[in-house]
């Protein structure tokens, strides 16, 4: 029989033993995450970036580091076992984005339309 007997053998609840990762992938993830962390701290404490661009740089580095964590530590890949997890993650990211940017946007707008407060 060819590879399809693996498919026919599978029943619910039976563990299919396959290692999902290796020591090497965790170590690669650790090195990349440490580099991203150091870069974040350096960017925030030095004049390496143009001052008004520092928050943007920090957000970019944070997103990069989250990506590193997702791929190397949580093993979200392009494999078929990850499809559902990726879809759920995409929905989660959408909600997180709506909550954070929506709140900041609305409150900033309200704040700028407030009557000027005078000191008593």
């Amino acid at each position, binding site marked *: 029989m060819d590879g399809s007997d693996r498919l026919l053998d*599978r029943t619910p609840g039976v563990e*299919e033993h396959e*290692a999902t990762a290796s*020591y090497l992938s965790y170590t690669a993830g650790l090195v990349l995450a440490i580099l991203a*962390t150091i870069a974040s701290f350096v960017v*925030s404490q030095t004049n390496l970036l143009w001052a008004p661009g*520092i928050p943007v740089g920090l957000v970019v580095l944070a997103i990069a580091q989250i990506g590193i964590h997702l791929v190397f530590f949580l093993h979200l890949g392009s*494999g078929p076992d*990850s499809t559902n997890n990726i879809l759920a993650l995409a929905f989660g990211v959408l909600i997180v984005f709506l909550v954070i940017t929506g709140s900041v946007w609305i409150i900033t707008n309200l704040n700028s339309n407030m009557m000027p407060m005078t000191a008593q």
Partner: protein
Amino acid sequence: MAIATIDRAPTAIPTELARGRGGGGPAPKRIVVAYGFWIFILSDMVMFSALFAAFAVLRGNTAGGPTGAELFNLRNVFIETMCLLLSSYTCGLGALSAELRYPGRFLIFAAFTFVLGTAFLVIEATEFAGMVAKGAGPSRSAFLSAFFTLVGTHGVHVAGGLIALIYLSAQVIAKGLQAAVLRRLLCWSLFWHALDIVWVGVFTLVYLMGAS
């Protein structure tokens, strides 16, 4: 042989293509369990996003009290970050050792994870206590309320994770690395890595942007 042919007929799709897309029979239990736990983690992320949003809105409202730049010690934050990152690494290595059925190696990595997680919590608790002693407790300003809520919720998650780690290590010792224990370990490692992801957001938005 005839039965095998009949069985194989509806599954003409190659196994690798069918998996995870509804074809090819039910997914293995550890995939299903990890997916359910992943949904829980994402809902936890949505809760954290509300706390992040509150902090982002209130970060400037210091009510004449101390600002982040005056309160935060970035050297401590860097040590905290490294503790949590390394504990994520040892947690991953421990999960891998468990998957390869090395209980002794798993327990060593679990001990490293526990020590690093505890070090993180001790540094954070010291920082909180120092801020409260300086009169910069959660009741001082809206900024500090949001700060303590966000960072404190993360700390509570870390503490809960450490308690769960003790519980799981005891299960590994008592029951061995059987399938059910392995699935719990898989879920726990997902939780621990997710906490590290939240911390990336915390040190970027709260500490680095707040201190500069």
